[in-house]
């Protein structure tokens, strides 16, 4: 970092922010500083619980950087059941070595929800429950990222009646979690979050649901290239009708763009090739908590006056789908209080030093 032109003071400030957001408190700052001062790539473990591996598949679709460059140059991915060479005992060794040798410094990326029903037997790895594994890896983590809607909000297995008690990560660990929802999240969004954390060395600014504002601060509807059709009252009335071929608005086909915060219509998918609306299907709202129970997908939303483009999830999210958001928001408040107290602590110590 210092080689890249940061002053010592700037560097320590950055570490304070990183450690604060990571819930380490002041003592953690020294750990984070040493992690970034060394040439060593940050150690990362990628956990797999109740998921379909679409997040891993999406991650390897990244176009900038391409995933192999990230794996070789940006981070040391020491554990991921999808790609790692080791299996069984040797795989577990890779995980345990990382926890032991990088205590307080490693990053945990979680794909999948954790089932808490029936004492956790609905997801077991190596004879241990997902919940017990999560607690083990989370304990000494510098930061935790919840990849995708499963880890962020329970996604499909959390849909009614949630037979296995699928639970998002932030409800199970006692430290802040960066939620990167979507089914899956866009590859370049995932890579952006990695860059934010590991290259820029910052916890991204988060909204009340713990989502990076950089990618989840705007509604799909507000940034959609078909938005002028909505404003002009030009709608697709049936799939593949004349209006569909003209690329009119998909609102009447059930598009969830007006209530969905995601980067799809700006970043787009697969290296910018398209996104669902561009290819003729409405948004199903896959980055919003409870979206599976917000259907049927082809039934259009109730009359929608249209919020201003400046609205964010923090202000509008409480109006739309309020019931599903209450629990999440309550957690976020607790999280943010905890964060604020740590930040105050760091500032106090900073002033003592200077």
């Amino acid at each position, binding site marked *: 970092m210092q080689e890249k032109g940061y002053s010592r003071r700037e560097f320590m400030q950055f570490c304070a922010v990183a450690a604060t957001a990571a819930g380490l408190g002041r003592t953690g700052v020294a750990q984070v500083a040493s992690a970034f001062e060394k040439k060593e*790539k940050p150690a990362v473990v990628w956990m*797999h619980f109740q998921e379909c591996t679409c997040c891993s598949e999406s991650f390897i679709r990244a176009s900038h950087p391409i995933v192999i460059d990230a794996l070789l140059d940006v981070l040391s*991915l020491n554990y991921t059941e999808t790609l790692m060479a080791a299996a069984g005992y040797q795989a577990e060794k890779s995980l345990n070595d990382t926890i032991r040798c990088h205590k307080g410094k490693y990053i945990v990326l979680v794909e999948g929800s954790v089932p808490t029903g029936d004492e956790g037997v609905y997801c077991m790895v190596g004879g241990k429950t997902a919940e017990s594994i999560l607690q083990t890896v989370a304990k000494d983590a510098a930061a935790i990222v919840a990849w995708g809607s499963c880890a962020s909000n329970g996604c*499909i297995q959390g849909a009614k009646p949630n037979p296995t008690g699928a639970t998002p990560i932030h409800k199970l660990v006692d430290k802040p979690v960066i939620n990167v929802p979507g089914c899956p999240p866009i590859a370049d969004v995932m890579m952006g979050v990695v860059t934010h954390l590991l290259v820029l060395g910052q916890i991204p600014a988060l909204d009340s649901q713990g989502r990076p504002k950089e990618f989840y601060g705007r509604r799909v509807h507000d940034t959609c290239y078909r938005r002028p059709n909505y404003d002009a009252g030009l709608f697709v009335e049936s799939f593949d009708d004349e209006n*569909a071929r003209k690329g009119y608005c998909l609102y009447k086909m059930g598009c969830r763009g007006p209530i969905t915060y995601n980067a799809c219509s700006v970043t787009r998918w697969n290296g910018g090739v398209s996104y669902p609306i561009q290819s003729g299907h409405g948004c199903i709202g896959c980055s919003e908590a409870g979206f599976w129970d917000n259907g049927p997908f082809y039934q259009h939303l109730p009359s929608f006056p249209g919020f201003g483009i400046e609205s964010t999830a923090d202000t509008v999210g409480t109006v739309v789908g309020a019931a599903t958001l209450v629990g999440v928001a309550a957690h976020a408040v607790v999280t943010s209080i905890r964060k604020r107290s740590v930040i105050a602590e760091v500032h106090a110590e900073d002033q003592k030093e200077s």
Partner: protein
Amino acid sequence: MTRVIVDPITRIEGHLRVEAIVENGVITDAFSSGTMVRGLENILAGRDPRDAWAFVGRVCGVCTTVHSLASVRSVEDALRVAVPPTAELIRNIMLTTQYVQDHVIHFYHLHALDWVDIVNALKADPKKAAELAQSFSRWDKNTSAYFAGVQDKIKAFAASGLGIFANGYWGHPAYKLPPEVNLIAVAHYLDALEWQKEVVKIHAVFGGKNPHPNYLVGGVPCSIDVNELGAINSDRLNLVARLIGEADEFINQVYIPDLLAVASFYKDWAKWGGGLTNYLSYGEFPTKGYNHPESFKYARGVVLNRDLSHVHPVDARDPQEIREYIGSSWYDYKGGDAAGLHPWAGETKINYSGPKPPFETLEGHAKYSFVKTPRWKENPMEVGPLARLLVSYASGHTDVQELVKDTLGKLNVPVNALFSTLGRTAARGLDAALAMIWLKEFFGQLMERVKINEVSTFNGERWEPKTWPANAEGVGLVEAPRGSLAHYIKIHDGAIENYQLVVPTTWNGSPRDAKGQRSSFEQALIGTPVAKIDEPVEILRTIHSFDPCLACAVHLYDPQGRHLHQVSFE
């Protein structure tokens, strides 16, 4: 006798545990256990059948698209909806694209490290590697400068701790490739990772995104209009054409040559891993509609006892043919553990009766998996690329026969070499080569239809629920990259009454049935040698040859609960 436990089995989708009994260096029995469940079938009840494709698409993000396709087919079957030919072509393009991408990922990123020693590649002479690669491929990247560059990357990577390659079985005596072949394979591992993100852009064009592109009951969601900016137009078709061209080059100049090069050093693996002798394929790639399986590129049928002179017909609707059992699975049936249920009458009541976690072994538990056990007329069946090729071969599909014979000739092995771990892995390559040929063909046909403006992509006659009967049932069959996939739906008053999935790994990875008959994974492991029980790479070779898709895990414990490599018992 030693019980070798591998959990997590990595480089698969999902959570799989294998417990194998090894006697005198050879596996004599095995138990395959799926250790994760989400209960999706229960979540689907009461939903709008038109939404089901989105829900069940999330069964798997590795074999993305295939469950969505099976779902829309099941609903269309139930509601008697005919899909427009242009939409059928786009679906075929989506599925062949998935074959091509998925098999390359499997070969390089999920399976190759069982055969390729990355660390040994550092010893290779890049010049010799280039000469060798150029002798079997005209891919223009295969130069000595390129291989030297890859070697430098791996050296730097090894110095920084190896990351995802740490703690592999490097140096294990079962690795047989010369350093130059290892280097070629490692270089193409990196290239394949870069290429796979390109080919799936075909899914993004027609389905808006990948993983999990969009599908639609009655057709496909995209529209084609070469005079509009907002539809699939000539620019979009040009992009698809370019991606298909690049895929053709990668399959035929990288994947297939590498597969043959690696296979030629592992011919002893044509002796092991054969497993079951029965093969099932639902057939795939309709050319005259889903209800005309005789027109499919891959044939529908069953081969029993490896008898390629006879193909048995398959009727997925017949309650006597496909049935699922739970005698060894953590479920309850109203009719008891001995009952076998046709999926339309299927039940999904989870009842875990295994050991309380953390546990060391599943030994002694009659039920040991979250996977149900499907049978065809009471027979266990292997599904997947090998099964598809054998059923089509036996059905007289000449394109399949010629490709199989040609490949066996190149490897100089007899036809029974197919019934093995090596044969299964080779069959997957041929499956990709055929899919590549058909992908080009389907795209050519799509262009012909665009020329004459036959571009309708949606049949909305049965879109509105008021047009549906009060009760309907349908089945959606797909040959997914990993094998035969069936979705069964029952619709009542416009909502899903019952939804059951019988997926490829349910066939291959299930526990034994009430008669004690093993399924594919368990049977294929029997007879496999294990040189070092603390590094059971041979188990991974055979299990990975099926390309499992569940939720995974490999751990070895001693009775005190400390982690060891094995449990010994009398």
